[in-house]
């Protein structure tokens, strides 16, 4: 069986970052679940902080730098996505949004996506449902029913087997299930012709 790839997109800005910590835990849980199901998987991390300038340059110049292109290709070619952003002003961070803005709106069609977020208070948790979920629905991705929000109390008071752990494992099972039941992903080719010339002439 061909190796599947999980792309893990983390939009955390600090080092170390709680966003990255959540992303890693989601990735490990998903990989373990796929492993349990006998699906070999490779995990590729995309730290958006490393591409901050390039993302803005792509918005301005219209094309990605070499390094950003590799990151975009990783995401566009992955069998499953784990995306985690800090919540800023009740929504995803601008860098997180801009990265998916330059990715292109066909890249994630039918791709299973697990959405996660971190924030300074649990009161931000529904940003996952009113900001991230609609954006990935717009991109026609398949968003897992369980989204995972980690608030300070999850890191501070929670035990290793606490409620956050339970949500991570449930989301990981959902993502593993979706990745496992699909054919290996193929990145969309923007230069592929989808109509015949006769259809073009007919104005279709």
């Amino acid at each position: 069986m061909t190796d599947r790839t999980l792309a893990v997109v983390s939009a955390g800005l600090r080092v170390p970052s709680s966003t990255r910590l959540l992303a890693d835990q989601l990735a490990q849980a998903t990989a373990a679940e796929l492993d349990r199901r006998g699906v070999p998987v490779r995990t590729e991390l995309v730290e958006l902080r490393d591409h901050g300038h390039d993302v803005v340059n792509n918005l301005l110049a219209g094309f990605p730098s070499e390094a950003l292109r590799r990151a975009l290709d990783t995401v566009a070619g992955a069998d499953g996505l784990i995306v985690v952003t800090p919540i800023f002003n009740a929504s995803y961070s601008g860098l997180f949004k801009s990265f998916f803005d330059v990715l292109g709106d066909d890249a994630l069609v039918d791709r299973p996506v697990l959405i996660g977020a971190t924030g300074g208070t649990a009161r931000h948790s529904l940003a996952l449902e009113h900001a991230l979920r609609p954006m990935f629905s717009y991109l026609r991705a398949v968003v897992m029913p369980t989204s995972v929000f980690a608030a300070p109390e999850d890191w501070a008071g929670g035990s290793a087997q606490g409620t956050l752990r339970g949500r991570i494992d449930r989301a990981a099972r959902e993502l593993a299930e979706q990745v496992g039941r699909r054919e290996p992903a193929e990145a969309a080719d923007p230069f592929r012709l989808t109509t015949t010339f006769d259809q073009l002439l007919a104005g279709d």
Partner: protein
Amino acid sequence: MQFGIFSVGDVTTDPTNGREPSEAERIKAMVSIALKAEEVGLDVFATGEHHNPPFVPSSPTTMLGFVAARTSKLLLSTATTLITTNDPVKIAEDYAMLQHLADGRVDLMMGRGNTGPVYPWFGQDIRNGIPLAINNYDLLRRLWREDVVDWEGKFRTPLQSFTSTPRPLDGIPPFVWHGSIRSPEIAEQAAYYGDGFFANHIFWPKEHTQRMVGLYRQRFEYYGHGSADRAIVGLGGQVFMRRNSQDAVAEFRPYFDNAPVYGHGPSLEEFTRETPLTVGSPQQVIDRTLGFRDYVGDYQRQLFLVDHAGLPLKTVLEQLDILGEEVVPVLRREFAAKRPAHVPDAPTHASMKARRDAEATAETEAGAAR
């Protein structure tokens, strides 16, 4: 191989002194640049077409007609003619007229235009960009090739017994290129008709150009116009040169940093690495340009962008001197040496006429022999 320049026709403030040319100055500067192109031995001048500020060239055939009257060898072209928002009837008439005035020194490059609000000013909708480009061009071809046209389509009023005048010079329509950065439909269109394909090439990584030209060549062969390496390919390029490359970089940097298309984005160094922009010595421009052949194959036309981003006219004319004296003669020689004999030149009015006359003679002789 043809070498020339293409101009966007932007009115941009010179970032080094805050001076903005008037429209009159910019229009006259474009003419000076075109005349200089002929003087220094370049083959082609192509003007953009735009219908919104900060651009001046809204009426390409007016400008090209004026240039035609003051030149004798220069081939006059466009980069691009908006096949989407112009009425194909008017394109057929305007460029046939220009052909007659310029003694056939005319070809065109079709493009779509990417600014949404421009389309409705001409009664169109950018969402129909590709179908407009395909359908309008199909009508344009018929208007040039058939004396009387009956036509009905989606995007303009029907035509009954319409004759576009004047008829093309010697009955030979201008050669047409199709320009596109990343729409495979346009490469397909160029291949379908056996027309030329022009890759803008500048502002984008070379992979775009490589994919689009590859697609065009493959489909050109598929449609039976000849082997893929006989397809007619043009490329854009963007250069700034001084004797010492450090001087070129220092002088061009403020223009780059504030340029309308990519200013305030990637650094000059990143942009020169990732796109065909070359800022340096004439030899660096020669080496980089010769390298284009490595990923598009032998090609027929190279146009350079030299007059944008607020560069003063004097500087642009100096660039043309360097191109004409030091760069293009070497490129001509080197490209010619590398090119296999079966790869054709880009068609011109003279070559298309010679070919048609030869075919007619051969037919007459064959008829006489029967």
